[in-house]
């Protein structure tokens, strides 16, 4: 519903109106030139503007418009009595040209969509990686600083007559912190290796070991 409304009011709205005006012009030409003036020369070239634009914007749906114009041309020719092989050929060309333009437009739009999707996917992965690296840095730099300060404090304690049990306990804590930091670092390496295809296999294995 919302999409339908957008067709008439938003980006696609002006297209509908352009095609509607061109459709009216084509019908008018058919009535005035063909029915009234009884000539079929020249005016049908205008039809191609409508057909090409509708095929560009609405792809194969434009074949309905082409079909309508074919019907109108054949009907007026029958009414006027000038239906010849040239009229049939002209009507057939409406359909052929519309189909060709619609197919090319369809292919172009599909390729554009694919490119856009690929670009979005790459950007998403890139931002995820940057976020991950930032998070990993946060989880390594700061803890390492704390570790350094804890070790410094232990070093000072050694000079002041150490409590061996306390030092043992503190050392165990620092080892646990370090093990976790190494684990975090390994995890970061794995993420980077999985992201970058150009890293040789031997280095991949080394980084994630």
């Amino acid at each position, binding site marked *: 519903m919302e999409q339908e409304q957008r067709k008439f009011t938003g980006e696609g709205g002006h297209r509908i109106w352009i095609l509607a005006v061109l459709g009216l012009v084509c019908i008018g030409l058919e009535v005035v030139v063909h029915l009234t003036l009884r000539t079929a020369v020249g005016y049908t070239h205008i039809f191609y503007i409508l057909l090409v634009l509708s095929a560009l914007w609405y792809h194969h749906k434009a074949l309905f418009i082409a079909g309508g114009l074919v019907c109108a041309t054949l009907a007026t020719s029958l009414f006027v009595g000038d239906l010849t092989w040239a009229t049939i050929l002209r009507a057939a060309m409406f359909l052929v040209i519309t189909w060709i333009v619609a197919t090319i437009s369809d292919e172009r739009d599909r390729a554009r969509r694919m490119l856009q999707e690929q670009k979005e996917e790459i950007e998403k992965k890139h931002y995820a990686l940057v976020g991950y690296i930032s998070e990993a840095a946060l*989880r390594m730099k*700061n*803890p390492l600083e*704390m570790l350094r300060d804890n070790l410094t*404090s232990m070093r000072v304690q050694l000079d002041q007559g150490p409590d061996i049990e306390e030092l043992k*306990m503190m050392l*165990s804590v620092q080892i646990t912190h370090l093990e976790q930091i190494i684990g975090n670092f390994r995890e970061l390496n794995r993420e980077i290796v999985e992201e970058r295809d150009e890293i040789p296999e031997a280095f991949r294995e080394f980084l994630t070991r």
Partner: protein
Amino acid sequence: METQFDIGRLGQEKLFLVLSSAERLRQNNIRVIKTLIGRGYRVVVITTNQPSAILKKHYAAEGIDMGKVTFIDAITKYAIGRIPEGETDTKFVNSPSNLTDLGIAITEVLNPASGEKTCLLFDSISTMLIYLPSIHISKFIHFVTSKLRLLDVPGIFLAVEKGIDPLLLTQLTTYVDDVIDMDKPPGILGPDGKSPGT
């Protein structure tokens, strides 16, 4: 009094993020505890950086009344593999990354209706970053601050000043009432953790 700093506002505001340099973290922890006990609070210390047994020794050496301090220790069992003997007054959690058990321990310690004024001291958010992604820490701190607000209990969250990235810092500052930089002269800090005009 030097130790007062902005903690003097504890009566009006309940939750603080306290930033400290890494090298002064332990001293600042002691200064905060001294101030809180001096104001009649029973302090619940959640430690993820130093074993509670060591903290107890340091507190005792500083003349802090240990009857006023309760510990939730999330590092000793994980680092040493056992609970030290004679630590019956301390709640031990298996690992700093075990937020469920940590949450349960906090709830248990804060719930007793003893009528005492209680304050929670979290030491420290920076150490938690070793064990957990910042998003989990942020959610956990949000859970704890919500609980503290419900129970009308003040809380102080210690963190290393330069160890928190701007995104996490912004999130944490939205959970607390104010930010205190222990290594800066007294003054009211803005939500970004900086003094106005800086």
